[in-house]
């Protein structure tokens, strides 16, 4: 991990309230280990909002990093104003990665809301490496989607309001995607209620699952101990030192679904 001044190449609206930003950051790219990792962005140099903002890496291309972000508050609003050529102070790559690529299983990649960034990253890496996978993306409405519902090619969209893809939560779409799969493994990232539903679904159907959790973060490097998640298995981590709580920034953000307790 390191702090690098990245140069923004592109920053554009790709769906309702959802933006994609590409930047060059060769030093961080060099240390990048895989989908699931994130960067901490210093959105502004003033100290009226002191903390960096964690953003999952959505793609790596050459020496470029792409992120996908939803405009949520003042800081993401400021991010949308940044123009190509502008400098951005970023810290990364941080956290662990999804562990996948076992030929025995078919990977079902599940993303929702802003959590689709690492999922799209995996999907892209899968295409490059020839790994067959199924993509399931949830959103509230069709305007928030920026890819097509294409079940023939194993891309399933879900919307709460049914305006595109399969209506309802992500679960009916996951069920649909599993119809022709004998040994699925689920990899999911999204808002906590979605992850909780995926966690329950995976447990009920005894499907191996990894989830990448979102967390409010202070430092991103394990020193503030702010971003804790309760473990279900009490394994001691040599990173965060504690049995009950894990630090999302260094132990995570990716966990075996069965190992953590979601609210």
């Amino acid at each position, binding site marked *: 991990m390191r702090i690098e001044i990245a140069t923004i190449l592109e920053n554009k609206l790709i769906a309702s309230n959802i933006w994609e930003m590409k930047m060059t950051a060769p030093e961080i790219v060099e240390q990048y280990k895989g989908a699931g990792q994130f960067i901490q962005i210093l959105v502004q140099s003033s100290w*009226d909002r002191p903390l960096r903002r964690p953003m999952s890496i959505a793609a790596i291309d050459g020496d470029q990093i792409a992120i996908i972000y939803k405009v949520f508050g003042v800081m993401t609003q400021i991010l949308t104003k940044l123009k190509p050529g502008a400098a951005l102070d970023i810290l990364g790559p941080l956290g662990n990665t999804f562990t996948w690529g076992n030929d025995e299983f078919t990977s079902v990649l599940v993303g929702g809301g802003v959590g689709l960034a690492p999922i799209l990253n995996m999907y892209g890496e899968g295409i490059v490496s020839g790994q067959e996978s199924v993509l399931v993306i949830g959103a509230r409405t069709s305007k928030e989607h920026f890819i097509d519902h294409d079940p023939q090619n194993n891309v399933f969209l879900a919307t709460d309001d049914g305006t595109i893809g399969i209506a309802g939560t992500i679960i009916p779409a996951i069920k649909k995607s599993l119809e022709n799969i004998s040994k699925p493994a689920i990899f999911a990232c999204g808002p906590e209620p979605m992850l909780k539903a995926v966690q329950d679904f995976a447990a009920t159907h005894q499907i191996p699952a990894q989830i990448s959790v979102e967390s409010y973060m202070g430092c991103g490097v394990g020193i503030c101990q702010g*971003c804790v998640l309760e473990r279900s298995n009490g394994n001691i981590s040599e990173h965060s030192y504690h*049995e009950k709580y894990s630090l999302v920034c260094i132990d995570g953000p990716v966990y075996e679904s069965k190992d953590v307790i979601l609210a």
Partner: protein
Amino acid sequence: MPDLHVKIGSVDFENPIFVASGTYGYGTEVSGLADITGLGAIVTKSITRYPREGNPPPRIVETPSGMLNSIGLANIGVDTYIKKMIPLYEELKTPIIMNIAGSTEDEYCEILEIMELISTNIVGYEINISCPNVKAGGMEFGVDCDLTEQLTSRLRKLTDRLLIMKLSPNVTDIAAIGVAAEKGGADALSAINTLVGMSINTFNRKSNIYYGFGGLSGPAIKPVGLACVHKVYQAVDIPLIGIGGIISAVDVLEYVLAGAVAVEVGTANYRDPNVGNSIILELDALLNKNGIGSVDKLVGKVELGL
């Protein structure tokens, strides 16, 4: 070249920029990201007699020019600290100051007794009598002059190492607590710990911190830190270490003028663990530019009135 050396008690520090307890782990975690060897000293996160898992999330929230935290003294306990962390300090030139928290006078003393029995190059102890986030955080000592003096004098008898009492701003008269710690035999005082604060989400009416209250830190508290340091400076003769919202060399000079001989950088580390080194370079350049050979002569020299 300005002389940045500072002597506190019997310990020489190469420069007056330390990192504050709770903002730098046990000292070596961020060594891949920051040059920890350049720091004046590293103050460890609070260590208690036995491991503590800490408070449930949410533990932190950003606030205007600052943040609230309620970590709850999550730490590995002194036995594991000795086993896992103390050996890491052997090769480290940066002075380590171990921060200690307890819920009873005996607990503080027991930790110090254990530490004094082992061989270690830590240079001193900072005693946390001011954690606002847990009942066992020593806060009952930090708000009471008699308890502060009694605890300090018991700890004094146990060690010849540097003994620093860390003061809380959540009191009526911080100078009186400082005087009590001085009477008890402290070598130095550090101030301030975090201020009790609260943040509320109006959409769901929930507190943004699990237990409601947290400790406020960051640039938002700098004026409070300066005022506290100056009040204590006027009341005691032992050296002071200023803490609270330091992000630049100018902030350091403000604390020096208020009465501090050194400072601890805290929340700024979360944004950049290397900020301490940046401040050292900035301070060196600032003193150089203004022809100031050392900060010694500036300590406490704030002028009042027109």
